[in-house]
């Protein structure tokens, strides 16, 4: 038998067989019957609860994918808006000239 290598990734069949025999638990039938008898006393979750729990992760993933896709599509299709320069902003006429005049009139009046 060779000295084992530190990173030997293959099972040692000789050692495995010997250990299997050494740890052999014997007939499984009585054990299985005992476990099943006890299992009937154990309350378990309903079908709905189990499926809902397993589906929850899937729904969350689907929502995330949909949001990400929507964001990417929206970003790709939206035309980039031209940003006004500082000069344009200063020289542009006021959006509500009437309000400016009212304010000026009240200041002058005071």
């Amino acid at each position, binding site marked *: 038998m060779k000295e084992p290598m530190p990173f030997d990734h293959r099972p040692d069949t000789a050692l495995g067989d010997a250990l299997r*025999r050494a740890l052999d638990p014997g007939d499984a039938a009585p054990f299985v019957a005992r476990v099943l008898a006890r299992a009937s006393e*154990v309350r378990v979750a309903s*079908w709905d609860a189990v499926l809902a729990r397993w589906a929850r992760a899937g729904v969350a993933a689907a929502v995330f994918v949909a949001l990400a896709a929507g964001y990417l599509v929206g970003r790709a299709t939206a035309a980039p808006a031209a940003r006004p320069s500082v000069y344009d902003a200063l020289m542009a006429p006021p959006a509500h000239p009437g309000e400016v005049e009212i304010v000026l009139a009240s200041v002058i009046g005071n």
Partner: protein
Amino acid sequence: MTRAAAGDRAAFGVLVERYAGVARRVARAVLGNPEDADDAAQDAMLSALVKLDQYDPRRPFGPWLLRIVSNAATDRRRRRTVRRVEPLDPGLAAGGPRPDTAAEQRALGERLRQALAELPERRRVAVVLFDVEGYSHAEIAAVLGIPEGTVRSEVFHARRRLRALLVDWKEEA
């Protein structure tokens, strides 16, 4: 799995039958005593049944179950009355007189079990899962909750000890 979790007795029976052997061997590797091992394996199976709704079906079932088995066996070992660790019988360790063929396998088994009992618990489970059950280092890492590199190291050290015992046995033969 879903059917078992929802209380389908037959489906759970299939799971128990499929994993009874490995669960009992792993528990026995931890506990030594076969009766204690079966109790721990049974507790683990029932615990797994209750927790089935927490199982992630995208992951392999075996390592998930064996983690529960390993933990159940460890808990039982801690809880049970502290027994003195019996050292390896010097006669067995040194080989001793060769038994007749009829008793040969039993004696080898006894020597292996005693040698296993002297290994640290994690090392025992690692070598049994790797060499007996054929699980990968990654799967054993998931079972034991340790890094994969540590699993390799544990398997290496366990093999060195157990292989030496087997070599002595063969040389005596």
